[in-house]
């Protein structure tokens, strides 16, 4: 493999609030190569979105990147000046947000918003910029692009708006796209269309993509690699098949078990007891240990990242081994049990 498009090393983004330090991202490392899709999975508060914002340099006060390196094509983005970052944003690195109504300016026409993005980064004429915008709309499957360029965002449906947002992200042929839950607000058939567009565009242009989501099923269909985040840390990562078929971290196992699946129709879903911890003044050691069926005394210490088979990396003292079915049967004694009362 050639050098990855993006390599994040030991990233720590902390928020220094009045009540204490919130370690939203705490030692995250991963890399993504050209044309690859990395799925960044986690529940609310796991730090997946903050990881994305950190890469783009969109962390506001009281937060800041406390440590770590973000190597984009070999160049560290963390020490860059804001003006330098601004040059990258929208040209080399683009982002697609969850809510397209929030990312599009409601009082500007689509053509204004799109040509603005082109002209900010490229030395082309206005007419050429409009042409580029038009081509981008065609690429994401918008019918009658000329008419659509003259419309305002409120005239579009949710799915169309998200397509426009994707078209804007791809305008300047970026090397890296960070997509933060872009299909969560959309209907199933529209989600299918958006996933299709994103998939084809990445394959055709060789753009690297980080797809942030809470939906394991979407990641399963789209990504090459997967990072599972919990309480600001990557607890497990590796090739998609390896992680989903042979999950090693108890949290990954729990997460997969809680998704309704064809094979277990009608049965009880596995449920992870308890809930996600507050990130404020989090105790040292493994953040998952209070919900973990395999926790031991060792878990009071910070677990190291260890390499497991099939190219996975796991941050756990007591990882599972073997395929998922085996793990679900053997390793989860209370998988089918009624919930204990608090």
């Amino acid at each position, binding site marked *: 493999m050639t050098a990855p498009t993006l390599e994040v090393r030991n990233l720590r983004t902390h928020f220094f609030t009045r009540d204490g330090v919130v370690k939203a991202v705490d030692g995250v490392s991963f890399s993504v190569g050209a044309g690859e899709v990395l799925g960044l999975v986690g529940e609310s508060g796991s730090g997946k979105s903050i990881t994305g914002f950190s890469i783009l340099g969109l962390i506001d006060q009281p937060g800041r990147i406390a440590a770590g390196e973000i190597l984009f094509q070999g160049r560290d983005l963390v020490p860059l000046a804001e003006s330098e970052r601004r040059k990258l944003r929208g040209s080399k690195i683009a982002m697609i947000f969850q809510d397209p109504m929030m990312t599009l300016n409601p009082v500007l026409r689509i053509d204004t918003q799109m040509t603005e993005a082109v002209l900010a980064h490229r030395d082309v004429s206005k007419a050429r910029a409009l042409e580029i915008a038009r081509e981008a709309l065609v690429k994401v499957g918008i019918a009658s692009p000329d008419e659509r360029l003259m419309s305002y965002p409120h005239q579009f449906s949710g799915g169309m708006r998200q397509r426009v947002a994707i078209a804007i992200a791809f305008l300047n042929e970026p090397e890296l796209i960070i997509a933060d839950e872009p299909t969560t607000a959309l209907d199933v058939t529209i989600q299918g269309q958006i996933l299709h567009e994103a998939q084809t565009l990445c394959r055709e242009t060789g753009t690297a993509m980080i797809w942030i989501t809470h939906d394991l099923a979407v990641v399963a269909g789209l*990504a090459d690699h997967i990072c599972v985040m919990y309480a600001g840390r990557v607890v497990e990562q590796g090739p998609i098949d390896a992680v989903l078929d042979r999950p090693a971290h108890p949290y990954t196992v729990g997460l997969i078990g809680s998704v*309704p699946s064809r094979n277990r129709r*009608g*049965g009880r879903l596995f449920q992870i007891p308890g*809930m*996600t911890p507050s990130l404020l003044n989090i105790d040292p050691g493994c953040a998952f240990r209070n919900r973990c069926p395999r926790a031991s005394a060792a878990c009071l210490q910070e677990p190291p990242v260890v390499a497991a088979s099939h190219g996975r990396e796991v941050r756990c003292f007591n990882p599972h081994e073997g395929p998922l079915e085996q793990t679900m049967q053997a390793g989860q004694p209370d998988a089918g049990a009624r*919930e204990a009362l608090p």
Partner: protein
Amino acid sequence: MSAASLSRDAAAPAARRPILEAVGVTKRFVKRLDLAGKIAQRLGSSIHEEVVHAVDGVDLTVGAGEVVGLVGESGCGKSTFGRMVAGILPPTEGTLAFDGKPVWRDGQVASRETALAIQMIFQDPFASLDPRMRVEEIIGEAPLVHGMTTRGERADYVADAMLRVGLDPDFRRRYPHQFSGGQRQRIGIARALAVKPRFLVCDEAIAALDVSIQAQVINLFMDLREDLDLTYLFISHDLSVVEHIADRVVIMYLGRVVEIAATEAIFDDPNHPYTQALLSEVPRIELRKRVYQPVKGEIPSPLDPPSGCHFHPRCPHATERCRSERPALREIASGRWSACHLNDPS
């Protein structure tokens, strides 16, 4: 296997006593013209009243103890139908009968008994609880009003309801904001269960929750079904959740039912082209690096629905007949209903 899957196999929908019967239920929302609009109309403008056919002639029977999943995309009328069943929104036309007695009479809920027997659980656990009421008041208010408990016994009554949904009764003096999303949804469920309902309408009840919390609430629904002999109308856009908990699935598109079948049948062999399209789009954890082949187009506006079969502009098999004639919902096999002209012998 667990008891839940046994009862699922044992009782075919036909064998169940019907508890809810909907016949030709229709809901139209009309945007009346204001004064300026009326004047403009008088003067010959083409302005007219806008009518949304949110629900357009839905027939559905739910058996006692059954879990029926109602699936569709935004704007298909599934929530409106659920609200009519739950006694929140009166239907424009058609009849809804619960246990043989009408739910609605003259735009009012017919009886208090029916109103209590059908309870609703809402999507957003943040918006559906009064932020200024303590949990005790939220759960205990309705039973107190309806004489199911007394002021002195309310604390115990609420504690029972909280225990049933897995909440610690020590929290009963707290306010909703002191709970997480999953716990709030449990409060909403406890509130619904406090009046001893027999039928629950769950409108996207788990959509706002995190994956691991979703699993907890789905399990809770299945336990309650066993313990309290409840019947569910489970409204959701999430097919994999519906597949997991429903006995029968109803698919809606733009206000109409397009297909009804047992869960296994609909997922293994969908009949209606819309159901087929919907199922092929469902992301599944077993399917890796798939090539998405989406259905073309978007859901048309319910203000101006397409003629004939509502799905024809997006349907790969549409014929001339689909453009002009509305397909009836017909039984194509035992317990399987589908509204598609393709099922007619040509």
